[in-house]
């Protein structure tokens, strides 16, 4: 009887979202009076397991097998299933990463359950947890109740919880051996790689003008470029703009693009899906221009104008030119 966190790493380095997920688990654990345990799946997890043991959990399972050297959905699902059947947690939490999206729904289905994916908050009461997740890219929230009389599964979105802190205490580490069959791992992964070095480093930009779907057409981009030029800012974009090929992928800000922290970030025609927000919320000052006053971007913005960007942006460019003379 516990809450189990399946932590994520790649090539010996932690995905920091693992510690945010532990924080969510610890908070729920206090509400439900349940201990929090964590697991790491790998070929040789000794070093990572002892690091994980410092994050306030009561036990760490070091799940090892040579076939866990490289991530595969089949290998991870089988290993996590064996651990879950043996330890019978009430709730399994994951960081909501691309890797988790690839195997956690499959794991939950083996227990006849639906993963509650992409959770931004949770409340515990008695034998029940109510998860909060976003709909419509953050425009609405939904409550989903999970019954803990049976096992439940949820994945926690980046930035929803502040990462758990380390302590002096080291939780015990329990080796957990799994049996995996190479022939049952159907997908054959090759080594992960990065594409050619980025020629644009938005991470060090002082000022960024970022554009989203509100721009409507590629032909409208000069409106944005003129503002960026007047400000001496870099141009960036949300994912759909790069998917459409209107700006190169390397100018994308967000969870699948670059993380930026400029002095000023102009979000123009960007509604503010959480995948975009995690890439820019470290900006010192955020300016949002959007026609929808309910757009989530206004939650992280310091200043905003609600209205038609095709009127507002040229007016801004004029003002900037005036003060920059």
């Amino acid at each position: 009887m516990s809450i189990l966190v399946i932590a994520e790493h790649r090539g010996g380095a932690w995905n920091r979202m693992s510690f945010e997920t532990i924080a969510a688990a610890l908070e729920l654990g206090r509400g439900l009076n349940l201990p929090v345990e964590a697991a790491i799946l790998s070929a040789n997890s000794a070093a990572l397991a002892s690091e994980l043991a410092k994050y306030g959990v009561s036990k760490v399972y070091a799940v090892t097998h040579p076939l866990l050297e490289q991530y595969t959905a089949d290998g991870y699902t089988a290993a996590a299933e064996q651990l879950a059947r043996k330890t019978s947690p009430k709730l399994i939490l994951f960081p909501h990463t691309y890797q988790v999206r690839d195997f956690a729904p499959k794991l939950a289905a083996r227990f006849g359950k639906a993963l509650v994916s992409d959770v931004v908050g949770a409340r515990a009461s008695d034998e029940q947890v109510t998860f909060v997740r976003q709909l419509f890219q953050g425009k609405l929230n939904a409550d989903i109740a999970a019954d803990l009389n049976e096992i439940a599964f949820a994945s926690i979105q980046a930035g929803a919880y502040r990462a758990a802190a380390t302590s002096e205490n080291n939780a015990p580490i329990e080796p957990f051996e799994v049996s995996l069959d190479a022939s049952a791992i159907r997908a054959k992964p090759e080594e992960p790689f990065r594409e050619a070095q980025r020629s644009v480093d938005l991470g060090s930009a002082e000022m960024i003008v970022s554009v989203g779907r509100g721009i409507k057409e590629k032909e409208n981009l000069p409106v944005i470029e003129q503002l960026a030029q007047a400000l001496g800012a870099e141009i960036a974009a949300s994912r759909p703009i790069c998917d459409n090929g209107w700006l190169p992928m390397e100018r994308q800000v967000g969870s699948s693009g670059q993380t930026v922290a400029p002095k000023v970030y102009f979000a123009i025609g960007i509604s503010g899906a959480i995948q975009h927000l995690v890439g820019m919320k470290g900006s010192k000052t955020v300016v949002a221009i959007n026609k929808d006053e309910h757009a989530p971007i206004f939650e992280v913005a310091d200043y905003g104008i609600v209205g038609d960007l095709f009127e507002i942006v040229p007016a801004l460019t004029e003002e900037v030119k005036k003060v920059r003379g």
Partner: protein
Amino acid sequence: MKIVVSVKQVPSRDSNLRVNASGTWLDESDLTYEINEPDAYALEEGLQLKEKLGGEVIALCAGPERASQTIRETLAKGADRAIHVQMEDAAGLHSLTTAKLLAKAVAAEKPDLILTGLQSEDLGYGQTGVLLAELLGWPHATIVMEVEPRDSSLRVKRELEDGWFQYVSLPLPAVLTVQSGIKKLRYATLMGIKKAKSKEVKTISASDLGVDLKGAGGFSRIYAPERKKSAQLFTGDAKRAAAELIEKLRFEARAL
């Protein structure tokens, strides 16, 4: 190659989203609908694979009567026929129930490949493809950016996080979830729209498929999120709002 593309109809992106009186879903009276954009990319990939390799593309869609509009659109773009799992309350189902319906509807077709978008723009669970593979007992790959067909397998390029990618090979039959932007989307031609009218759409109900929808509800309540931090908003005409904003950026935020 026999390819099934699973698509969803979702409220249009510019919709004014209002929660209904009971707080269980949207007030649908003034909504318009469109194909889930990631699924449009899955369809495009399916059509291009068929054009290269021959075979058939079958569109699969679970949803109410109105979803037939989206199904027509897939046929107009080039899908050969379609399966419509007709049900009134598709939005309220959780991911596993929806996947069970789709898996049962498609199993008899014995396709070589199922494609779907990486997630829906309304519920955003991002699970349909993975669950279809699990329920059919097939391998899968998610967030796919390139598909390279081999004899009885595929080599695909997956997007990982933080600028990393990976090639993965997997035997057929298989399920892929497709990343938006994989190929340039086509428009339906007039000829395509005309042809679509005579293409076969098979309609099945959830009870035909033997899936019990009782207690399969996803959420208990939906609501507008609390706005944590409110931005200072400038209103009025564009010129004045712009001047006020620049003033604040210069003298309050000291950013310009």
